[in-house]
């Protein structure tokens, strides 16, 4: 067993568990960040440099910050951290989670793949990655670019505060019961 990988995996799992258990939501997100960092380290351990750095950049640099901003904008720190005690909910949740884990474990330990040994050197050149992105996968990449643009604009539009137009306010006021009383 690889010592480095064991440490990374334990940190990643522990911080992921902490992320869904802690009471303070900001602590949750910070633990989640640690978990993302652990995943990035796993990628590096698998000698996938580019993807590892992309993981750090996107998840730690952007997604976590986005989640934190959203938390602060919704005053999330005050809410209860778990569902209220409802045995049905809890049993379903834990049962589904642990059941999936069991199924996955059974699958993993019965798979033939687990005895595969890796190549000693893997040609993880950024050149190869770039070439295949612009060659084999050029259409998905273009689609992805469109998706990202749409997501950017859509998110900005969704999160923008709704401004009431001048004509609207009048109608709003007159339609309510507490509207101005006319002589």
């Amino acid at each position, binding site marked *: *067993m*690889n010592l480095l*990988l064991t440490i990374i*995996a334990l940190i*990643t*799992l522990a911080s*992921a568990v902490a*992320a*869904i258990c802690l009471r303070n*939501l900001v602590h*949750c997100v910070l633990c989640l960040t640690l*978990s*993302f960092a652990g*995943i990035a380290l*796993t990628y590096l351990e*698998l*000698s996938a440099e580019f*993807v590892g750095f*992309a993981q750090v950049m*996107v998840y730690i640099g952007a*997604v976590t910050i*986005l*989640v934190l901003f*959203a938390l602060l*904008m919704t005053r*999330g720190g005050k*809410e209860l*951290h*778990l*569902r209220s005690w409802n045995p049905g*909910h*809890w049993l379903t*949740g*834990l049962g*589904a*989670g642990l059941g*999936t*884990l069991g199924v*996955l474990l059974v699958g993993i330990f019965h798979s033939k*793949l*687990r005895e*595969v*040994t*890796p190549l000693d050197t*893997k040609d993880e050149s950024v050149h*190869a*990655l770039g070439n*295949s*992105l612009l060659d084999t996968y050029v259409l*998905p990449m273009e689609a*992805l670019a469109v*998706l*990202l643009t749409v*997501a*950017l604009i*859509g*998110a900005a539009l*969704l*999160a923008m*505060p709704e401004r009431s137009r001048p004509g609207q306010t009048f109608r709003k006021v007159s339609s309510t019961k507490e509207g101005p009383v006319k002589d």
Partner: protein
Amino acid sequence: MHTLTPYLLLSAGLFCTGLIGVMLRRNAIILLASIELMLNAANINFVAFWRFHPSSEDVSGLVMVLFTIAIAAAEAAVGLALVISIYRHYRTTNPDTLNELKG
């Protein structure tokens, strides 16, 4: 030389942690974060399978991971924007209380 098993175990653990988080947390933002965790668990598998693939030229696994990361980022952006606009309307981020469409 190590084998594929630890990566698969890590991935399974992370996936189930994310799943339990989705099931049990009552804040929409943490739900989204848990979904991110599940996507990442899948990504670990992609990278691990790429590393253990016998061919040395094929980089499909990495390309998939890049796509997943991009889609996850877009998903997080749109999801959080939705949560914020929902919060503006209903003053809550608890998905249980957003039941106006219930029959």
